[in-house]
């Protein structure tokens, strides 16, 4: 019986509860004594420089909710070590001491051959400790065991477990990485960004052509692994050897794949060690599925930064050998070296820049939005395009014949460097700077009322919606008279800056903007609730509306924009 449980190391036994010094440990001991399902087996202590750092309560716990023949292998009676750290800000570690305790999800990263640690909480330690009490803690442990025994600990709609934990180091991929990858001649470089105060850094992967100058770059290897079924979270590997072991447990031969990749990169002429080639990034694509029979649910991308060049790695893994100052494929090496095991690796988070679809997902925008034309890239128009563009809503062309003046900057999204440039172009450039080509806004510098002009006529022809943010009367009235135009809506902010107005035509355009404009005036005159300041003919007055609360503006415009599209659909 003795060797069915793990023994903790670096601890000494305490004779009785009086010797417990950490307050939480004492409180926990008292709670355990009062709890009918728990019994104390042993008390242990770890000290450093005479002061206790951890006090462990070894307990046996019985859980009546654990089915006796559960397929997950949890027993009715389990032996646990409750390790109370002296630091009150840290959570108490719960270790399962039974040697054949099953491997489950919701176990914290553990080292092989050591007791597994139960991951009891979903929230951060700070959030948990705010309401933590010993009896609730004891019940939580039972809850964990009972739920795990029924396989209910992982709600079905929770995302599939990540295979590794989050890291301080990031690799940013371009939004069209998958597409770029298809071109076999494409060359990627990885630039390393500056270190942050906490020591992390971000790398950027870019597709390049031709030589790249001085920036520190890394070679890059891409590996697609066979699907893994989500299981418990692995610990962060510190060396290539550990990474290979982790993947090996999932039936993946990392080193074999690495060797093959390196060998395909090196042709008969061999390779030379280049001063640029000082780092290797291994990108690992892991399809993850919920169970062995299911299809993969998602793809995990992980990257590992090896601060050694591809040549160095090639030699260490036995993929290359050195001859006459050059490095050649070594396909005869039947005796694989193990030098590679000690190469250090840094785990990196892999993030992808937004494309339209991911922008929409992040913004809870379900529809792609219209092919639209925005008339007017002034303060309001630029704000609309900023929000719609960033959230992936719609495919826009924008028409404005004006340019940026200094006073615009109090509300327009443009920057000082844009003074003097056409507003439409500025707005399109700013969008490009955000999306890097994933989506585009087409600028047209022209008078939108002139429907016969070519670029104007063209975009109006294909659009399904025209949003007039010109804050003039000329455009909406002109558009009302033209039967060939698509559906219109007109928006503006009220002169006192406290409201936004939307005039929306129906799909058939049976009531046009000029009619709605008249209805709006009638509303103002008749309805006491609306601002009584009459709308001025003078568009410049409208444009110089008083400055108002930025938050109001954003929320007004944002919901305004959404309402434009959705409201239109409801009416239709």
């Amino acid at each position: 019986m003795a060797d069915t449980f793990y023994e903790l190391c670096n601890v000494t036994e305490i004779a009785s509860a009086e010797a417990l010094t950490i307050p939480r440990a004492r409180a926990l001991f008292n709670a355990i004594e009062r709890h009918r399902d728990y019994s104390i087996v042993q008390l242990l202590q770890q000290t450093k420089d005479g002061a206790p750092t951890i006090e462990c309560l070894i307990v046996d716990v019985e859980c009546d909710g654990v089915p006796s023949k559960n397929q997950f292998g949890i027993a009715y009676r389990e032996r646990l070590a409750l390790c109370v750290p002296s630091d009150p800000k840290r959570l108490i570690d719960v270790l399962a001491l039974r040697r054949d305790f099953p491997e489950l999800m919701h176990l914290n990263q553990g080292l092989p051959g050591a007791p597994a640690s139960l991951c009891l909480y979903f929230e951060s330690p700070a959030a948990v400790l705010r309401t933590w009490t010993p009896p609730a803690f004891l019940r939580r442990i039972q809850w964990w065991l009972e739920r795990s025994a029924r396989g209910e600990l992982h709600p079905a709609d929770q995302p599939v477990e990540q295979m590794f934990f989050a890291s301080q180091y990031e690799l940013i991929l371009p939004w069209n990485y998958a597409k770029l990858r298809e071109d076999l001649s494409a060359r990627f470089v990885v630039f390393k960004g500056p270190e942050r105060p906490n020591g992390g850094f971000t790398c950027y992967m870019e597709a390049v052509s031709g030589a790249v100058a001085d920036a520190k770059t890394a070679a890059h290897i891409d590996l697609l692994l066979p699907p893994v079924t989500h299981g418990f979270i692995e610990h962060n590997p510190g060396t290539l050897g550990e990474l290979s072991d982790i993947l090996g447990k999932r039936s993946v031969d990392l080193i074999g794949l690495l060797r093959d990749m390196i060998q395909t990169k090196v042709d008969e002429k061999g390779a030379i060690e280049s001063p640029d080639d000082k780092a290797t990034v291994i990108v690992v694509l892991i399809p993850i599925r919920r169970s062995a029979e299911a299809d993969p649910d998602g793809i995990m991308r992980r990257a590992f930064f090896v601060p050694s060049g591809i040549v160095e790695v090639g030699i260490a893994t036995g993929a290359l050998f050195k001859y006459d100052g050059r490095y050649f494929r070594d396909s005869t090496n039947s005796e694989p070296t193990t030098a590679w095991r000690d190469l250090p690796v840094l785990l990196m988070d892999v993030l992808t820049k937004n494309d339209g679809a991911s922008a929409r997902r992040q913004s809870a925008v379900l529809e792609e939005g219209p092919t639209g034309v925005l008339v007017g890239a002034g303060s309001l128009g630029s704000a609309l395009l900023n929000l719609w563009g960033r959230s992936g809503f719609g495919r826009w062309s924008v028409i404005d014949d004006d340019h940026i003046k200094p006073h615009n900057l109090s509300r327009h999204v443009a920057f000082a460097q844009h003074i003097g440039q056409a507003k439409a172009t500025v707005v399109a450039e700013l969008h490009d700077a955000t999306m890097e080509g994933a989506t585009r806004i087409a600028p047209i510098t022209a008078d939108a009322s002139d429907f016969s002009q070519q670029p104007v006529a063209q975009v109006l022809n294909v659009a399904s919606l025209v949003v007039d943010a010109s804050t003039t009367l000329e455009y909406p009235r002109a558009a009302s008279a033209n039967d060939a135009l698509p559906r219109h809506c007109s928006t503006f902010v009220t002169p006192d800056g406290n409201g936004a107005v939307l005039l929306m035509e129906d799909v058939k355009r049976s009531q046009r903007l000029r009619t709605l404009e008249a209805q709006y005036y009638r509303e103002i005159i008749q309805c006491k609730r609306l601002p009584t300041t009459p709308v001025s003919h003078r568009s410049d007055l409208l444009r110089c509306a008083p400055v108002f609360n930025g938050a109001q503006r954003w929320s007004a415009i944002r919901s305004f924009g959404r309402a434009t599209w959705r409201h239109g659909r409801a009416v239709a």
Partner: protein
Amino acid sequence: MQSLENRENAVANMHQVIFYPVGNGDTTQIVLSKGRRVLLDFCHRGKSEDDDTPEIDLKKRLREDLDAADRDYFDVVAFTHADLDHIQGSTEFFELQHAKKYQGDGRIKIRELWVPAAMLLEDVDRDSQTEEFALLRREARHRLLEGKDILVFSKPKALADWLEPLLVARGEAKSARDHLFIDAGTIVPGFSLLADGVEFFCHSPFIKHCDEGDIIRNSAALVFNVRLDADGELYDYLEVGDAEYCDLEEIVSITKFHKNDDRLAWDLFNIPHHCSYRALNDEKGERETTPTPLVKELLLLGKADAYIVSCSKPVPDNKAAYEEVQPPHIQARKAYERYLKEVGGRKFLVTMEEPNATKPEPIVFEVGKAGVTWTRSASIGAPGILVSRPPRAGHGRYVL
């Protein structure tokens, strides 16, 4: 989602066995996974309707259960014997077919009534006859004569003597009700492992209990091995009326003689007689009762992870308890706990102790494929214990 389906299936194939805290009395409900419900005994004490008393307001609780399931009937109500603490309040709660005044008005219907033969025969003098028992006897006799909605366990001669002339008078054959009599050692018709996930094996009563003349209520009581099938896995629940040790000994030896030993094993054991020492031996013992050999055999037939339930008042371990004359007896509890531990069983539970003695709640067991579990009624801890949703970016989808 695959695991969601598994969970739904798992819940769907779960049977429940519920023990109600009715003081020193019995009421157990079996809720089968497909919905059929069997109630064993009924004990509603008038004072339980008062919030101050620990006994549960049984009528209210059962009504709530049935309402939630949109039912106004039990498939079976079985009275193991006619002691008051097994029938009390039943004639006000249930619909009785034999007279209109016991019908309607929200009364719960009994689709099939199971009674031991003794209940139809007992001739108690007017003083000791309780109103409850008299009504139930009348009901049982009525149903038997009408030939429907009843099963009678064992057919002693005295009962046959009473029944046959009445049948002849109705113009029916003497054997016309034979199909409604169930003998010990057989499986009760109407339920099957395949169709319902349960079968009831009758251990008792034996004919000789009644034919010997004076009917000793407890000996002639119903004893079942209730076998539950959860997705192919079988679990045994031993339901004993108020039997004494000698009755248990007889059951054990007869069952072994007929090579039905498996019918003595148990995952759940509703121990007889409210934890009385008399179910183990005729001597209480000072600290612990020693069971007679055959009873000990029965106790050792408990399977690993089994539970024992004592439908009784609390059984504390203090000086006064050892001197108690009426059951429950702490000495008996000690004996049960010893043997439970020996077979690797889980816990000895007392209906009036869980979760506490002030306001006990029903003890609910769930019998599923992976085993018998006791689901605690109190959800301990704040909502923080519930699974919290992880933060999401966007409309309920995670960002890769």
